[in-house]
Structures are given as C-alpha cells and as structure tokens.
C-alpha cells in the first residue's frame, strides 16, 4: 500500500521569493483617491461640469492609449489597466474650465498620450509630464476657451442645459458668465497700477481667494495621505513650497504693494495641486532625494516668476515642463553617497 516515492518537481526562481505587494495600478489608484477631496470640493463650487470634463479626458486618454499600444504592438491589458492614462486625464481635466468644449479634451489628451507619452516609449519612458504637455498645448492654442472660468460659488454653477450646450453644442456662455480667477484679477489689476491690498479688498475677489484656499487645503489633505502611503516623496512638495518662498518672500518684503504674499501664491491657482500631484510624477521628475528637492524648488520658483512676469496668470504647467527637462541633469549631479563610500 506504500505509495511510490516520486521525485517532486519544484519551481525555481530568483530571490526575493514572495512577489511584491505593490503595483503600478495600486500607485495610480491611490493618486486618484487622493484627488477625491479636491474634486468633490471643486464640483460643489464649479458644478458637474468638472466631472464631465474628467469623464471626457479619461475616455480620450484611454482611447489614445489603446490606439498607440495597438500601433506599437504592445499588449493592451496590462497597460490599459495600470490606470496611468486616467491619472493623466484627471490631472488634465482639473486644469480645464468646466465648460470647455469637448474637443479641448480630445486635443489635449491626444497631445498628452501620443506626443508626450508614446512617442517617447510609453509608460515609464516619457521625459515630460503628459498631462502638462496636453494642457500647455491647448492653453497656447485655445487661449480664449481656456482663460474663461465661471464664477466660484454655489450660485454660479451652470445649468445642465447650458453646460451641455457649451461642451457639445458650441454655445459659448463665457462672455456673459465668466468671472476672473484670483490670479487673473491680480495680474490684470496690478497692470492697471493698483496695489495688492486694493485688489484683494474687493468683496468678490476676497470670496474667491477664500474658496481657492479651501481648495488648496483639500489638495494638501490628499497629498498628505499620499505621503503617508509612500506614493510620493516629501522632497517635492517641500521643495515647491521652498521655491515659492525663496522668490515670493523677498519680492513681497521689498514692495508688498506690487507683489502678492508667499501665502497667496501657495494657496491660489494650481500651486498645491502641482506640488502634491503634478510635480510628484515620478517618471518625468528627479529620482534622487536631493534632486527631488531641487526639482520642487525649481517648480515653485519658476511658477512665481511666470505668474509675476510671464504672459500667463498661472505658471505651474510651464514650470513643471521646464524642470522636467533638467531632471536627468539634477539626478546626475546629486547622486546620493553610497554606503561605505565618500561622496
């Protein structure tokens, strides 16, 4: 009744023997989850238009991704399910006015996925942040559509009919309903010779700034969770904040009438979103700890400079792309010391 002794076959494989628990999909999913507080708050203020833009951008991003994978002969499943295309889509959509026409998302996502991502080799190989490439392309090409934002606040949310007409039907309500963002106002009115204090004392702007600060808090919340989850590294947001301070503080101390305070710069526009979600993109950013710090500082500093002296009210996108270009150099310069070696 003794069973014949059979030589068992065992599976070979290199160490470590237990598969990694983390995955690209999980990392991307966490980024999407961390964006939720800000998305919810934005939707409350801007209306469902934002959700529509997010949906549009994600659909176009996935379509472009699928088409490029097919053309390049790469498998669809692992790359479509890694969620990197939706992250690009959401970050892009968050930069758009909620009533932007649908073809803005289409053109933006084609630029992001085809131009910035797949022409460089797809996931992991892109030199520039795809979402920001997409955004900058449409920002430069369609200044009018991108520059008009509806007023912030519960009362100013668009009627669904108007929204659908604006997005899909070519109806353009912005002349009547557009309202300047805090950064727009600052830029325009500083140009008219008014002081920062005068500009900020206007009741409408004060409310807009307050809401913008709440939104910054929401991004911060998500960002801190990402830090806790070890999805992003602290060096980037700290670097961005330091960069903003380094440029904005001396200007503000020199002439507070002509220059906004560092806190204003940190809490308005896309600074917080950029610091925690855009500049932290690992693929196009720096990979060494000190490199990340300098990368973040560059983004923060350039952002303030572009806001103050550039042609656009906000500068995060341009700042990130410029720093993307120098990230490999930073990594080369700032390699960490190896254990048991001197620098």
């Amino acid at each position: 009744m003794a069973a014949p002794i059979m030589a068992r076959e065992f599976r070979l494989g290199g160490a470590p023997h237990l598969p990694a628990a983390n995955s690209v999909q999980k990392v991307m999913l966490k980024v999407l989850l961390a964006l939720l507080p800000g998305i919810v708050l934005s939707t409350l203020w801007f209306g469902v238009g934002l959700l529509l833009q997010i949906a549009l951008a994600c659909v176009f991003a996935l379509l472009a991704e699928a088409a490029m994978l097919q053309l390049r002969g790469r498998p669809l499943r692992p790359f479509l399910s890694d969620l990197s295309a939706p992250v690009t889509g959401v970050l892009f959509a968050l930069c758009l006015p909620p009533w932007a026409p649908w073809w803005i998302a289409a053109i933006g996502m084609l630029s992001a996925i085809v131009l910035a991502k797949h022409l460089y080799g797809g996931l992991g190989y892109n030199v520039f942040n795809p979402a920001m490439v997409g955004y900058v392309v449409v920002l430069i090409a369609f200044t009018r559509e991108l520059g008009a934002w509806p007023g912030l606040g519960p009362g100013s949310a668009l009627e669904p009919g108007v929204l659908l007409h604006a997005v899909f039907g070519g109806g353009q309500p912005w002349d009547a309903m557009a309202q300047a963002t805090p950064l727009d106002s600052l830029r325009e009115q500083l140009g008219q010779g008014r002081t920062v204090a005068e500009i900020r004392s206007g009741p409408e702007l004060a409310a807009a700034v307050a809401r913008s600060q709440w939104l910054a808090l929401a991004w911060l919340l998500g960002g801190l969770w990402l830090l806790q989850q070890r999805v992003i590294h602290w060096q980037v947001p700290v670097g961005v904040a330091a960069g903003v301070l380094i440029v904005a503080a001396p200007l503000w101390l020199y002439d507070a009438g002509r220059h906004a305070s560092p806190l204003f710069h940190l809490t308005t526009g896309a600074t917080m979103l950029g610091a925690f979600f855009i500049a932290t993109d690992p693929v196009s950013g720096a990979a060494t700890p000190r490199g990340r710090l300098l990368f973040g500082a560059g983004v923060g500093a350039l952002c303030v400079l572009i806001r103050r002296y550039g042609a656009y009210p906000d500068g995060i996108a341009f700042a990130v792309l410029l720093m993307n270009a120098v990230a490999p150099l930073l990594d080369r310069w700032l390699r960490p010391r190896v254990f048991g070696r001197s620098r």
Partner: protein
Amino acid sequence: MNGTVALHGLHGGMHLPGHKIAASADASRECPLPPTLVLPLSGYGGSLARALVAPGDRVSLGQELAHADGSGAHVHAPAAGTIVAIELRPVANASGLHMPCIVLAVDPDARTDERAILWPPIPDWMHADPRSLLERIADAGIVGLGGAAFPTALKLGYPVELLVINGAECEPWIACDEMLLRESAMEIITGARIMRRIVGATRMMLAIEDRMQEAGAALRAALDTHTDIQLVEVPTIFPQGGERQLIRVLTGSEVPSGAYPVDIGVLCHNVGTAAAVCRAVVHGEPLIERLVSVTGPGVRAAGTWRVRLGTPVEWLVAQAGGYSADAARVVLGGSMTGTAIATDAVPIVKASNCVLVLTAAQLRDPAPELPCIRCGECSRVCPAQLLPQQLHWYIRASDWDAVEDHALRDCIECGLCAQVCPSHIPLVDWYRHGKAELHLRADARRRADAARERFEARTLRLAETEAERAQRLAGRGKQSADAPLDDPIAAALQRAAARKAIDGGSDHGA
C-alpha cells in the same frame, strides 16, 4: 549588567512580517539520521576540499573526510558509516549545477546522541595559547554559520578592537539563531569569549532583535553578573542583521566599500559560529551539525531541528510532517535572499539555516512586469544607499562603466528593492547578472594586462637576442673584446628599437 549602547540610524531597510512563530514555537528537536549523507567538497569560493577517503572506506563519527588546503573548511563525518561514492550531486546553488560530493551510507546502529570527540577538550581556554585555539577552530572546519560560510579561522586572524556577535536574525521565516540563543546561550557566550581571547578585542557586543524577549532573558541569565559582553537589542528591521549594516547600527561607522570590517577594527560573527567555536574548543568536537528551521506554509509541521550536515532536505522535510499538497517551491534560506532548489535531494550544509517551503498561491504574481516608473521606492529602502533603478537601466543597456560607477558591487542583494517594486521588475536577478558581467570583464582585463606584459617582454627578449647575435657575428670579424652589450646606453637604445619594432610593425602585415 549591560551598559546602554546608543544605536545609530541606517538608511533604508524595512520592517517585514517575520513569520517566525512557526519555527520557534516549540523547542528544537533532534533530526534522526538519514540512511545516506551527502557532503559537498566545494566550500567557500571555488576551491574544492581534497577527499581523504575513497569509496568503500569505513569511517568513524567525526573523522576528517576531506581537507581544505587553501581557503575553505575541512569536512568531517557527521556519522559513522561507509563511503559509497564521491560523485557529482545536486547542491544548493543558483546555477543548479551538480558538484562533487562525498556520499556516506550511515551505519544502521549510528545514533544522534553520540558525540564526536576528536581532540582533547580545552576547558582551560582562558590560559591557552591563542594560536592553539585558532588552530583548533580551523581543524574543526568551522565556517560562518550565518549564511556566508566564510572560514572562521581566517576571519579570526587579525587583531580587532570590537567583537560583535550577531544574533539579529532579521530575515523573515528563519528562526534557528533565535532558537540557539534561547537554548544554548551559555555556549554562545563561551564561544564569544574564546574568540575575544584570539583577536584581543577590548569590547564585545552581542546584538539581538528587540522582539526576542525569551532569548534576551536566557542571555541575561547566562551572563549573570558579568559585564564583559554588552547585550544590545536592535530594532527588528531587515536587513539590520547584515554584517555591515549591524556594525553601522552599533558603532556608527561604515565599513568602507571594498574593505572588510577588520579594516575598521571590528569583527562580526554569527551566534551559531560562536557556539560551534565553544564546542570545538571546550569539548573537542568538529562541526558536524547545525540548527535548521523548517518552515513555511508548504510543510505540515514547522519547527527547528538539530540536523547532521549532509542530511537531504527531503529527509528533513519528512521529519516536519512532509509537504502540504500545494507546496511549490523549496528555498534554502529565507524568503528574501534564499536559493530556490530544483530537487530536495540537496543536502543541508554548513551555510543552510532554513528550509522554507512556499505554496503555489504565495508565488502567484498578481501583476505582470511593467516598465520602471521611477517611483524611487527602491532607493528609499536600499540599505546600501544605491540607486537601484539607475543600476537596472545601465545593466539592461550593458553600459558596464556606468554600472561600475553606480557601485553595483556594493549591492548586498538583500532583495528589498525587488520586494517594493510596483513594476515587479526582478531587480536582484539583474544585479546578479550585472555582477557576473563585471567579474568577467575584470577577469578579461587582468588576463589582457598579463598577456600584454608577457608579449612585450618576449618581444624585447627576441630583439636583444637578435642584437646579441649580430654583435657576435660582427665581433668575430673584428675580434673586439669589449662588446658594448653591458653598456647601459646601448641597452636602452636596444629597448627603444624593440619598442619601435612593435609599434611600426606594418611591414610585417599580411
């Protein structure tokens, strides 16, 4: 009793789930002798031990079977029996290639409670000549039992300031050192004191992990009121038990890249090694057994066994209740750095601390390998402070100069980078490949340099011989007595001519 030691921080590392309860819940057990023992002749490095026996020979318990002439360790008979063969057998190595082994048929009446006393015990080792102690350790064939298997006597050959006894067994699943600390604390302490006498260290530390409560209590009891050994509890962080990492944590100094701990006056030995030293010196026993944890969900009854060297893994697993139905991979060592073996005929050797059996469900990779997204998690956990992702790129691109520049040789292959990689890249496999290529390159360069030197020396010699011959022919005509061959200027001119002959060799061309 133990003065507090200020611990130093370490870059990277991770707190990993220990999975140690299974192998350390019960007391260690004696593994019965198998019918056949397999004893590899390959030791540390590539050199083989020289077999002193032939097939058919009867051997007694503890008898020396093979002698290591260079760097290596002697092989002793773990049981009395008959040599059956000296042949190629599968052993635990990454290549899966078979290595020469002595195969020993164990006498049916051999028992595990018999002790092999080969040499006169030295109970009075405090007053013995350190050199005789060192000789005894070499004779006993003791190697580092932490896994590296470097010959202990070689490591003890230099005077040091600080002796560290390493009981910080940080790798998941393995519990043999913890069991030894709990059950043989006095042996470890005695072994440590013997080693201290040999190397003349002024300080001695015994590091254990802060989770080893029972081991700590046993050690404190064994130390009693003595203060010659500082008992240090280090945080349970992988790979804090690595030699260089532990020295950094305990002293704050880093062993320089390419150097050894002795270069900064520190020596680090595993607790198992210390116990083996004690047994060799105090009792006169060679190293013929060790503690091995048999664990993982793929075995039915995990535990830690006292195993005679040469026992096949198959036999040992059978003592642990055999394999579960879904056992899929057998690893010698822990889950992070162990070696998967193709067959369980592989024997337990001096370096084997754990037999880990994993199931198919555990091995299933939840996601396919994707390109690196440069998330930087690998460099965050790397205890060697390397840039694993850059290394990976350069090895892939076969850019060996850049690989060398990024300090691949300082990688300790702890496996953490691969364990945290969201893209599931087999980073350690890449580093092993890279190290092999670097090794090959260095070897080729060394050979080329030697060949160049020999070629130039030969060319010079031929030119000199030729000149000498010409001189002789000319001299025969002139009968000149003072040939200018001893003239240093002429000799130098000749060498220059020879050099030119090499460089300007186009007229020899085909």
